[in-house]
């Protein structure tokens, strides 16, 4: 095609200028295109891998998969705390345009969400926008299938399955195992220096943190390591697709095996019913704690998904204080159970066990009259323990002195805090002159000297003496063992690794003296204060023990009547410490019934029930029971003297009140 334009036309100045300029412009455009192509090559070929990574970081995201919490087992592998499935419905806040409208739609399917609307809205406001908020959990299968059918039609509503902590024994382990609950602001501030993964886990809506007992103490072990679900997201963070090959599996939390025996623990809780108190049992060979209860308990399952304020108020306001761990966190005067220590201290310091004191109910000393429950007559040390004579022990304690008694008590674990893995133990008080000096130095400098009048009270486990049930169990376990200073063990293994038990040190007491006390404790059950209520009825297998009835003190009401009468809050605390079998000890235990009245009437029967179960479960003892020839049981003479029982014969103890209000009575 011939194009004669430049050749044949009139080449004027304007056209020449245009032609030159349009060539320049063409060149400029070509240069521009070349530059853009160069930039494109730079971005796509040279920096391609860098931007590919950035694009992948945009496209893929890891959604946290919370790890299953470790299980907690008893010594026989029974599951105490595990995880159960829970069907739940959640709202993805950042995918919902109008939260109220969406909740209205949900309430057509799940009418119960209407009543909890305020709670849901509060949770939505508190949560980060990127995490979903639970609308309803623990749905029945019918409700869940109903919701899942419609959930797809409501944008932003997710119905799925979650794992929820479950405590299969209800309230039986509520204090020792504890419970988990939603993480609080204070928990978050306590968690310092956490990694990003842990931070995300802590803020995950289904995460629960241990609040008490084993759950709290071993929280980090039980938690596990979260995994990640690799997902493809769009620019608003909405999940578009799953990338299952990229998932990281969560590492479940470590399982914990306790030394507790679920059967014995449950029996102890049953025996207490709604009475307030605690039972602790230990194996006298290994120090393993077989049972540690605090009654009344509470259902820890209530706390997992958040207890209602109404239900919490019921627990908090109940005067039996179900939320308090009475085995560890509460101390009580030990009453006459402390006489075992007084007797041992006396013997160790050269006291002649044949020393006779006469009890005729009243003993004037130091300008006042000290009382006793009964007129026991002339007694030696053995008989004084068996009958739990206060007047004998006033004088025995005076002859030994408080410092030596306290030293002996401390050797047997009283006033001690044990490394059992869980916190919350209260040391209590084992008083002596050094303690008093220190204790009152600031509080009341005029009262720092130990007065001799304080020693008789200490001799019967009253006065300043304050101990927790675990300490008394350790005391009786050491007495029963007789050789080693056992320490209680609560955790057998964590994540399959056995907990190292330190070699027990020797008991710094003459075995002969310990045998003396043990023999007296055996007679407490055969013929002493617990003769009616402390028999095991397992043939030759007998329990040995010591009753205690400790005066309670209330700041408002002062002191109440002796025994199980009058205002509950003013009644005496009932104690029974025991070990069995009396001839070859296997188990030791302490039972406290708060405001239970007489130790023999209230605490000893409970100890007997619990001890029976422990002995019947023990193969060694079982063998002994089976090997009994029934013929041997016939014609066996009854123990000669059963009248010196802990319960006064007429049931209404005619106690002459001490002239001074500081007088103590103990049985």
């Amino acid at each position, binding site marked *: *095609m*011939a*194009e*004669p*334009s430049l050749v*044949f*036309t009139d080449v*004027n*100045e*304007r*056209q020449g*200028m*245009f*032609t030159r*300029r*349009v060539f320049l*412009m*063409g060149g400029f*455009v*070509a240069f*521009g*295109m070349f530059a*853009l*192509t160069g*930039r*494109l*090559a730079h*971005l*796509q*070929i040279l*920096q*391609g891998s*860098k*931007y*590919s990574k*950035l*694009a*992948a970081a*945009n*496209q893929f995201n890891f959604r946290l998969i919370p790890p299953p919490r470790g299980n907690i087992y008893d010594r026989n592998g029974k599951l105490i705390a595990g995880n159960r499935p829970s069907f739940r419905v959640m709202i993805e806040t950042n995918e919902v345009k109008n939260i109220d409208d969406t909740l209205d739609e949900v309430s057509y399917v799940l009418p119960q969400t209407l009543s909890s609307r305020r709670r849901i809205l509060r949770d939505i406001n508190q949560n980060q926008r990127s995490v979903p908020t639970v609308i309803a959990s623990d749905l029945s299968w019918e409700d869940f299938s109903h919701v899942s059918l419609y959930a797809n039609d409501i944008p932003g509503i997710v119905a799925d399955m979650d794992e929820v902590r479950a405590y299969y024994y209800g309230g039986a382990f509520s204090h020792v195992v504890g419970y988990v609950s939603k993480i609080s602001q204070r928990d978050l501030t306590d968690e310092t220096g956490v990694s990003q993964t842990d931070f995300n886990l802590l803020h995950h809506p289904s995460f629960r943190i241990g609040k008490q007992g084993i759950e709290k103490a071993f929280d980090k072990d039980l938690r596990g390591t979260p995994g990640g679900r690799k997902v*493809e*997201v*769009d*620019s*608003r963070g909405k999940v*578009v697709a799953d990338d299952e090959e990229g998932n990281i599996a969560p590492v479940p939390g470590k399982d914990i095996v306790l030394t507790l025996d679920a059967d014995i623990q449950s029996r102890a809780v049953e025996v207490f019913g709604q009475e307030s108190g605690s039972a602790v049992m230990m194996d006298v060979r290994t120090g393993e704690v077989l049972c540690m209860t605090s009654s009344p308990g509470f259902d820890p399952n209530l706390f997992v998904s958040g207890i209602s304020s109404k239900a919490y108020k019921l627990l908090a306001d109940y005067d039996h204080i179900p939320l308090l761990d009475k085995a560890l966190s509460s101390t009580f005067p030990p009453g006459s159970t402390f006489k075992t220590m007084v007797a041992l201290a006396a013997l160790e310091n050269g006291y002649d066990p044949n020393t006779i004191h006469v009890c005729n109910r009243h003993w004037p000393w130091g300008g006042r009259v000290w009382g006793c429950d009964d007129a026991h007559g002339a007694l030696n040390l053995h008989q004084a323990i068996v009958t739990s004579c206060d007047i004998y022990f006033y004088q025995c304690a005076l002859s030994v002195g408080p410092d030596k008694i306290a030293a002996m008590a401390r050797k047997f674990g009283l006033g001690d805090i044990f490394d059992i893995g869980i916190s919350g133990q209260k040391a209590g008080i084992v008083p002596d002159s050094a303690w008093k000096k220190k204790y009152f130095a600031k509080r009341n400098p005029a009262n720092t000297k130990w007065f001799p009048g304080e020693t008789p009270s200490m001799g019967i486990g009253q006065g300043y003496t304050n101990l927790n049930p675990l300490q008394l169990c350790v005391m009786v376990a050491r007495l029963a063992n007789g050789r080693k200073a056992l320490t209680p063990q609560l955790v057998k293994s964590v994540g399959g690794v056995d907990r190292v038990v330190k070699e027990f040190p020797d008991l710094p007491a003459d075995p002969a003296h310990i045998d003396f006390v043990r023999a007296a404790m055996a007679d407490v059950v055969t013929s002493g204060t617990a003769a009616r209520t402390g028999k095991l009825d397992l043939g030759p297998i007998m329990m040995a023990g010591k009753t205690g009835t400790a005066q309670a003190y209330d700041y408002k009401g002062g002191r109440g009547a002796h025994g199980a009468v009058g205002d509950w809050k003013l009644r005496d605390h009932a104690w029974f410490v025991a070990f069995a079998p009396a001839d070859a000890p296997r188990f030791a235990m302490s039972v406290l019934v708060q405001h239970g009245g007489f130790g023999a009437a209230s605490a000893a029967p409970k100890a007997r029930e619990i001890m029976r179960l422990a002995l019947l479960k023990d193969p060694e003892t079982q063998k002994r029971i089976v090997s009994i020839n029934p013929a041997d049981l016939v014609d066996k003479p009854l123990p000669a003297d059963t009248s010196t029982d802990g319960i006064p014969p007429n049931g209404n103890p005619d106690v002459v009140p001490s002239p001074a209000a500081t007088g103590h009575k103990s049985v």
Partner: protein
Amino acid sequence: MVDSALSRPGQRERYDSKLAQIDWVFVGLLATLTGIGILLLYSVGGMKWEPWAFKQLVTFCACMAFMLLLALVDLRVWLMGAYWFYGASLLLLVAVEAVGDVRMGAQRWLSVGGFGFQPSEFMKLAIVLALARFYHECSAKDANWSWKLLIPAAMIGVPAVLVMHQPDLGTAVLISLTGLAVMILAGLNWKVIAAGAAAAAVAIPLAFEFVLHEYQRQRILTFLNPEEDPSGSGYHILQSKIAMGSGGLLGKGLGLGSQSQLNFLPEKHTDFIMAAVCEELGFAGGFMIFLLYGAIILMALRMASLSHSHFGRLAAAGATATFALYVLINGAMVMGLFPVVGVPMPLVSYGGSAMLMVMTGFGLVLGVKVHRYQELPRQASIFQRFE
């Protein structure tokens, strides 16, 4: 028979020979480019014809018919209508100032019977036609440097200021640059160009400080350092660069671009469609598109240079310059070489009115080629009757 300068005049006026004179290779390139654009709109629309691809196809077909129709229009009609078109566009811009709709913080739109349009779009073509007519009647000496150049300067300045006031920085810059391109093509003195460039170098920082709106300033600051605020203003540029860079040599494949499919890429169907192209089709696809643009622009410039009339030459080259500026500015913008100014990629980006103006411009270019032998009188008047 092939028409040429030697053909008899009557024969050249016949529509069948005019149709034969249309550069069909050029039309084919336009269709190829728009076709790739529609393919990408189909892809970023989630591999669906709705909401963009089908509409774009329909618009393109209508615009194509309109362009071919315009190619047959006598150049004297363009010449006669140039000032009227310019005047009407200017009046509409003033009307926008008075009664325009405010959309997204800017007063750019006029509504007539429920149908909204932006008068500034018309001005892009009107300024080319008006300047072409002015220089058509102007001597080479005057075009080089004289007081008469105040007239084209005012013709550019008035609409540029009006558009700037809407505010629409991108279009104002485009109108100014287009006008400037026509002035340079017409033969503006190089010394004046150099002096103007120097003056601009001084004026731009001052304008930045005192004339620009806050959001415009922010855009430019963001351009200078996009990584500073990746989730805020720098987001557009950063995501666009990520989209292009991650495409690599051959791309991720149609419908498989994570950045565009998952909405990380903003304005993926309009201003940033080139990023989606480069992500899904890779460097190969991007290079292909720039090659097509280069070919289209150079062919259009050649068609302009064929014209026997100064008006035809300048009008066709001016319309091509607008197109070239669109391509260069948008290309530089999506690659992070130029601030985000809201300039679409012509023919590829989704949008009816931009497509209409571009195709109208190419209708003019094709018309100039078809009527390249036509001589136009120096002193044209609307009262002068056609021969």
